[in-house]
């Protein structure tokens, strides 16, 4: 079998050195009645050639985003990944290494994470970034756990209905057994009215969570929302989009205390939902530093005075604090954090700005073009958006989307899946990769399918 190296002679010599006569003797501690007395019921082994054709034949049953023109978003986007990202992340020295417990043996990864943390601070305008979390949804939940620790309050967690529905579901699961309550602030017009925050927040409010651009693609009045949170001493948690940060004000600029994001757009392939990258940054205050979850890399010097990097502030973490830890998280998403660092360094400030600008122009062109079709209207009016928008159609949405798939388009997401009152709505995302021809093609196909 592949991957195992001991020959029968090796095995004999090793058993003799151990002082036992058979492999069976090594398992003597497992009581016989607990042994599995048959083979596992899984398919037989496959050499690499057979495995490859088997996997390829299964993947051929998919219609991937690359097999059709992709206008799907909802927190995962078809952004371009420059080849340098794969070249770096494909180094075995990076991807077959583990958590840098021995700093001397992992300076490469430690420095790369330190750079990632620095880049996330630059991207969000906040002073502290951790070494990453699992993905966007659990990052919101971890930010709320932080807020509970910082405020020591046990009142309400206020979350806008326009925050990604799966992030909100994750949050609800995470706090189900803790001493606080999640209250969803309705967003019937596709955005959170800052006045609703003002009315709902009081001196027991733990935190206020808003996302901008939100799930419908709209920009929220983040400054005003943040002010209402601050007035009552609640933590303001902002969920942002890292690509849109190329043109938008940053969470730190509009007063966020904690910024979180799904970092998939920064160089990670779609791969059916994960592994992705959970970004979390926050203000540099003692209480925040004490409560921040996950790994942190810090700069120091070695015994010869040389600059170097180590895992630091570990007294917050589960392997030291056990049940009193700030979070149970153990791993980070190291490889995806590395991808994000290479991605942002490859784009630079100008490249990120131009990427975001292309998204804005193409999304607005698409919106205009699609709304020229009879029976297609914008669902929300006069709300600024960046790369995603919501359409209302005079047609059965699942059937329409199925027709468009046959025509070669993943045309958008059926919003009724998350918002029953929006059963006639489609969310369309347009990245920098979409061309005018593809957008015009979608418009023709949509027209023909209605």
């Amino acid at each position, binding site marked *: 079998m592949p991957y195992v190296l001991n020959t029968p002679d090796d095995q004999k010599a090793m058993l003799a050195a151990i002082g036992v006569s058979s492999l069976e003797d*090594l398992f003597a501690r497992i009581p016989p009645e607990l042994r599995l007395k048959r083979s596992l019921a899984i398919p037989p082994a496959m050499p690499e050639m057979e495995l490859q054709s088997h996997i390829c034949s299964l993947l051929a049953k998919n219609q991937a985003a690359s097999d059709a023109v992709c206008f799907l978003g909802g927190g995962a986007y078809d952004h371009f990944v420059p080849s340098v990202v794969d070249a770096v992340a494909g180094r075995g020295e990076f991807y077959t290494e583990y958590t840098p417990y021995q700093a001397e043996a992992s300076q490469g990864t430690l420095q790369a994470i330190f750079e990632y943390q620095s880049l996330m601070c630059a991207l969000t305008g906040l002073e502290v970034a951790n070494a990453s979390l699992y993905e966007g949804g659990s990052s919101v939940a971890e930010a709320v756990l932080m807020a509970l620790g910082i405020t020591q309050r046990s009142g309400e967690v206020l979350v806008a209905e326009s925050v990604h529905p799966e992030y909100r579901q994750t949050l609800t699961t995470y706090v189900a057994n803790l001493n606080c309550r999640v209250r969803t602030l309705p967003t019937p017009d596709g955005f959170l009215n800052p006045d609703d925050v003002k009315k709902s927040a009081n001196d027991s409010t733990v935190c206020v969570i808003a996302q901008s651009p939100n799930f419908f693609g709209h920009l929220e009045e983040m400054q005003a929302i943040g002010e209402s949170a601050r007035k009552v001493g609640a933590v303001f948690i902002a969920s942002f989009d890292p690509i849109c940060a190329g043109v938008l004000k940053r969470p730190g600029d509009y007063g966020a205390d904690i910024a979180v994001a799904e970092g998939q757009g920064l160089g990670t392939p779609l791969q059916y939902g994960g592994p992705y990258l959970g970004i979390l940054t926050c203000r540099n205050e003692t209480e925040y530093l004490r409560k921040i979850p996950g790994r942190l890399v810090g700069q120091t010097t070695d015994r010869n005075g040389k600059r170097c990097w180590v895992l630091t502030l570990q007294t917050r973490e589960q392997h030291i604090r056990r049940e009193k830890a700030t979070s149970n998280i153990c791993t980070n998403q190291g490889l995806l954090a590395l991808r994000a660092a290479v991605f942002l360094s490859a784009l630079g400030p100008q490249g990120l700005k131009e990427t975001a600008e292309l998204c804005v122009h193409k999304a607005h062109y698409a919106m205009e073009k699609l709304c020229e079709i009879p029976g297609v209207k914008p669902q929300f009016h006069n709300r600024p958006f960046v790369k995603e928008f919501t359409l209302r159609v005079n047609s059965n949405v699942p059937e329409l989307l199925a027709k468009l798939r046959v025509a070669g388009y993943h045309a958008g997401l059926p919003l009724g899946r998350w918002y029953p009152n929006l059963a006639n709505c489609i969310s369309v995302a347009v990245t920098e990769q979409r061309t005018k021809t593809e957008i015009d093609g979608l418009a023709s196909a949509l027209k023909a399918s209605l």
Partner: protein
Amino acid sequence: MNNTQSTEVIFELSKSGRRCHKLPACDVPASHALSALIPQEHLAEKPPPLPEVGEIDLIRHYINLSARNMSIDTNFYPLGSCTMKYNPKRHERLAALPGFASLHPLQDDDTTQGMLEILFEMQQFLAEISGLSAVSLQPAAGAQGELTALFVAAAYFRDKGQAHRRKVLVPDSAHGTNPASAALAGFNTVTVKSGKNGLVDIEDLKSKLGDDTGVFMITNPNTLGLFETQIKIITDLLHSKGALVYLDGANMNAILGITRPGDFGADMQHYNVHKTFTGPHGGGGPGSGPIAVRDFLAPYLPAPVVVKDGARFKLNFDMPKSIGRVRSFFGNVGILFRGYAYIRTLGPDGLRKVSEQAVLNANYLRTRVSKGYEVPHTGPCMHEFVASAHTLLHKRQIKAMDVCKRLLDYGFHAPTVYFPLVVKEALMMEPTETESKETLDAFADALLKIKDEDPEFLRNAPHTHIVSRPNEAKAAKEPILRWTPNKQ
């Protein structure tokens, strides 16, 4: 080779006007300025202050950084409890195929039938290997798997009118994630002592077990690499009090196809797919931590799970008792996909052989290491063992950490050090099945040499790496967590 090139931080390589990625011209009529499309109040005056570097500088920087890592591809990596086995290259090629890499997580099930078939089969494989009946692939890592299972337990007790079961029992040798997960799920943790033999002290367990006990979290084989010989007595005891048994599946590499958690009484377990089924560890992640549970707990699993409806596969969201989600989207599919490829490559006999050879390698290394170091618990061990530098510290003032640092000079990654907490000066070694006798011999030779080396020399080790003995106290006391132009 001079490897001091590119010790700068990427920001220090920045020069205004350089860039490596250019974008195509805008091909749609962009008649409006940005500020006509997005109100000025939302727009930044300038983009974020990212570094500006050319492509060759970017590549040299990161490739030189990579050379400052020890990794499985370059070095023996016997990091106990982390199962650092070889990561097959075929998995990387398959995971890069566009039919997988370009699959959007919110595509309609009609367009993901191949993907869903793989995930459906993966659920079945993991159920079969655990001897349990239902699986959720959603958790992103082992720690999240634990947390998810405890959420499931809490929901189950609430549903059965037993919300008073607030206590989780955890052995003192457990991973730190166990008590941390229990606290997050709203349980109070009570520690159960290990006996001198390194196994659960059953009398202590009995004294702490009550009607308020919800879950006993046990790692088996435990973190000392020992199989709990009385595991069935323990699980029967828990069940007799109406409590659930959770198996921390960190050490599944020792028992594949040999014994199954479901058969020895576990009601729930997580897998570390990145360990047991060899997802590359990525410098700290991604992991993947699916859970398997008994049938009566299946309704509480996170939604969706993959189901087969005739010949069609679909995501089932219709689970009214589900705890909800623990993350967005389906799961860490990239790691599950590699795990699937691994299980298909090895088949039932191959998986069993993995465990047999992992246990053989660990016992051989244990035998060789015990010639120069204490190994406090009697063998045989399973896939790993814990040695101790306790005597070495007393006789020669050499700490476990000194031994670890010196190993780096010999070209070996260090074992896990100072864990588990129940062994003083612990050196926890897990060689895995993918290493040869020659490698194990070379590593044991190095360890035996080191114990006789000059203590002062060892205190300053490593001597051949780019840095040596970073000042960790300083890093924590005056934290510098990001690059700023004036602090360097």
